[in-house]
């Protein structure tokens, strides 16, 4: 009986094939399926994202929610008060919102976010193109906003702080062929929509 196949012991082929199949299923097939399934969580007019502890934001209607929980969505566990992430995308730009504990001014928070951005490689060539300017929410909270460029495009960064010891960074990234300017109005309205009631968000 021939025990070799292409120089390999035939008896080793079955266990090897099982491991390869499991490996490919987990590392290739499942991510491909995920890529093929469209995001179906769309922001409707009036929708707000719950960022925990009474902090909410209203992304532009029609954008996709990539991560985050809408106010009023039924959950077993509340959105944590000390740390929440959300991400929305539309019109060729993506906005990443991060809320976490922070004891300081919006300027200090923006400095810290810049410090981190320059040391990570997810946005190579990150360069702030102009000094930060004040930006105000509809409820009167004044934060700071700056523009940046990177090898993958352009974007803007905004930072706000809140009296309960939290801070929020909002990073908007675009590929650099005009989407940022095109979506400027919507982004501005999203920033102005940031609201902090100081108690758990209700629909």
């Amino acid at each position, binding site marked *: 009986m021939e025990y070799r196949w292409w120089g390999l012991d035939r008896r*080793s082929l079955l266990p090897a094939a099982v491991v390869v199949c499991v490996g490919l299923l*987990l590392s290739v097939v499942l991510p491909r399926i995920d890529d093929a399934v469209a995001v179906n969580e769309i922001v409707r007019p009036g929708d707000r994202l719950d960022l925990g502890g009474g902090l909410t934001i209203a992304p532009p209607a029609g954008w996709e929610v990539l991560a985050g929980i809408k106010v009023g969505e039924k959950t077993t566990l509340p959105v944590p008060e000390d740390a929440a992430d959300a991400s929305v995308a539309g019109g060729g730009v993506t906005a990443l919102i991060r809320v976490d504990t922070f004891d300081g001014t919006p300027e200090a928070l923006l400095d810290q976010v810049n410090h981190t951005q320059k040391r990570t490689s997810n946005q190579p060539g990150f360069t702030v193109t102009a000094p930060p300017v004040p930006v105000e929410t509809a409820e009167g909270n004044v934060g700071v906003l700056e523009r940046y460029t990177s090898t993958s495009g352009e974007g803007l960064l905004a930072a706000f702080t809140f009296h309960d010891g939290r801070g929020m960074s909002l990073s908007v990234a675009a590929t650099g062929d005009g989407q940022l300017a095109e979506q400027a109005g919507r982004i501005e309205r999203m920033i102005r929509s940031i609201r902090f009631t100081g108690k758990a968000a209700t629909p």
Partner: protein
Amino acid sequence: MSTATAGHPAREPADDLAAGRRLAIEASGWGEPFRIVQPRNACFWLLLWGLGIGATHLIRYFAVGVGAYGTGLGIGIVAFTLYTIPWLFLLGHHNRYTSLPPKLFAVAFAWGALASAFWMALPANTAILSLYGKNFGYGWAGDWGAGLTAPFTEETAKATALVLLIGLAPRVVRSPYDGLMIGAFAGLGFQIFEDVLYAYNNAATGFGLDQAATAWKIVAVRGLAGLTGHVLFSAVFCAGLMWLLGRGGPGHRLRGLLFVVAALFLHGGWDDAAALGTVLFGEAGPVILMGLMVVVDLAVLWLAFRLAAPQEKAWIRAILAPETASGLLTDTEVRAASGDREARRAHLKAQPDRRHRRTARHVLASADDLAKELALSGGEDSPDVLHAREETARLRALA
């Protein structure tokens, strides 16, 4: 007493015992050499591929933020490396009966750390959690996603270490007890590297300002949770898989399936403890459920050990049994040497005084050595076997 039948030579009981010894050594795979480098074995090339691609994924993962979150990552690496040491002692202590070569555990650990964690589980978890969010809402995915993802992706990924080692060392990896030990080491590798990943990910907490405090918090929380975590789950899962594959003797496939399913449930219950505990017991539920889970986890592990051990004990008994015929060991000593800690303790306790207890302890230790030498020699009287026998006799004479 032996009887001769027509056409068959008479068989002495000693022949039967010697045959039983050879069968036990062969069935247990004890003493079989294990080589990692086997160019004719497909699993060897797959091992290189899996470790290589896992290491590549790991480097890519950490390289993105190492400049910003180096403090958290550094503390994670140092603390969890130290955390690994007592685990190695604990698992080494359980590598008993027909013990496995440490090299084999090193492969299981490395595969669990690199291939299972970074090649397989990380992309699969990301994909499934994303699919849950897209299909059932991010709130639902946040509550229940982890517990309905990780058991399937991570337990399967870790169990590939066992399948790979069955391919690499089919004569060595034979019993559910072997599965239990290999699963534990694959789980340990997975857990330690996942812990470091957590330390790194959480370094971004508080916008990366106080990475040291965050990292130490992760070390404490993950270190504590890890006591009944991946090591335990994959030990149970892989022991079950061995029964399911028919390697724990006939008629135990259902038992194997139950252990596999139990490991999935234990893992899922732990990962969803916050939401599940809240649903079951209210606000204090997560803590109550975690407490209960620890008890259930340990009970299932204890049961897996208890059911896996008899096969191993029977092999040791069969290997040492011929020594009773020659009078080197007594039946009681063979039973104690092939038994668990309780059996050994009972044997020592039965000795009349302290001096006899000390001698009995030494004789049991020499019986362990003798069994191992017999396994290495394939049951033949090698010089090492003869030396081990002399040592047993010498120690007994000291009484």
